[in-house]
């Protein structure tokens, strides 16, 4: 095991990363935001693949639905990074820290400040942006796109193919909401 780990723990790249995370709260918070977004990127990639292979969605619609998945993934990721990075900025952090914990006592203020930056950046990106702002913006957009692109689908195509079963449907907006 140590033969696998030693090249990592002794590498210049990883140790530079450790050094920055330890000494720079903003960088530490940004790293966690990026890690969190990476998980979403992976989830959206899987969703794209499963949508393309989902035979319940009419073949003509599949590329569009999959493209919507991909687009919503990209938009969500960019929005999450923008909000998370803004909240993690030293200016915002110092202001909030002084307002909330101005006279509070800490055993390890360094660790507390780092966690505070991380938690706030994650709440901003993972809760407010991903769960509230993006669905509110994406839902009408996706419905608009759906109506625009599917208007000319022939009548024999099952129009409501993915509206029949709540847990098997794959409409773009549902994909965003179900995340």
């Amino acid at each position, binding site marked *: 095991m*140590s033969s696998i*780990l*030693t090249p990592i*723990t*002794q*590498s*210049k790249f990883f*140790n530079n*990363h*450790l*050094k920055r*995370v*330890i*000494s720079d709260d903003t960088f530490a918070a940004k*790293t*966690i935001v990026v*890690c*969190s977004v*990476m*998980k979403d990127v*992976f989830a959206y990639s*899987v969703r794209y693949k499963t949508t393309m292979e989902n035979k319940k969605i009419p073949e003509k619609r599949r590329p569009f639905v999959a493209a919507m998945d991909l687009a919503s993934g990209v938009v969500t990721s960019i929005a999450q990074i923008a909000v998370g990075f803004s909240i993690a900025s030293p200016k915002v952090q110092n202001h909030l820290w002084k307002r*909330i*914990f*101005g*006279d*509070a*006592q*800490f*055993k*390890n*203020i*360094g*660790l*507390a400040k*780092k*966690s505070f930056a*991380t*938690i706030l950046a*994650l*709440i901003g990106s*993972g*809760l407010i942006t*991903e*769960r*509230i702002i993006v*669905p*509110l913006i994406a*839902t*009408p957009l996706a*419905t608009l796109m759906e109506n625009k692109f599917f208007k000319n689908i022939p009548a024999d195509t099952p129009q409501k193919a993915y*509206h029949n079963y*709540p*847990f098997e*449907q794959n409409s773009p*907006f*549902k994909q965003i*909401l*179900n*995340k």
Partner: protein
Amino acid sequence: MKVPNVTPVKFNQRLANSLEKFSEQGGEKIANYINAAGKFAIAPLMILYNPFTKESKENKEWAAVKQPVEAVVTIAAQILSLNLLYKGIDKLAEKGKLSFKLVQDAINGVEKIPDTILKANNGDIQKSIMAMHKNCIDIFKDRVGTILTIALYIPILAISNRVFPIIADLLTKDSKNE
């Protein structure tokens, strides 16, 4: 009777104590908790009350119920597997199989110990180096933890998809009985 003079603990001091306790969990676990909290509490509300969704009430309700179920399954599986991973990493560290160049450089005087660590340990070099080593292990755990969480995405989704119909059945039975 003499009433003891007790100063009440301020709200922000309580918040500070909670923050310090929560900090011990590490970044990856905190990220998973926040994600699960969002899925558990906010996602169902967004599905039910999003004014732009034109789904039927029934569809919305079913989709809303799915969110907390997924959140509970996901966080349980993530925390269980992360705890196992972290225990393994701690064991490796105890055996001395995890040594970071940054800490070695600090011991040899090549690298400066960050001021925040020195301050937290009242300038004690020995304690500061130990704290730095612990910091490095925690960061290492977070990064490996992220990789593990990503790797677990598909199996967790599969478990969640199996668990959900069972819970949905139970809920349907309840509503039918009523």
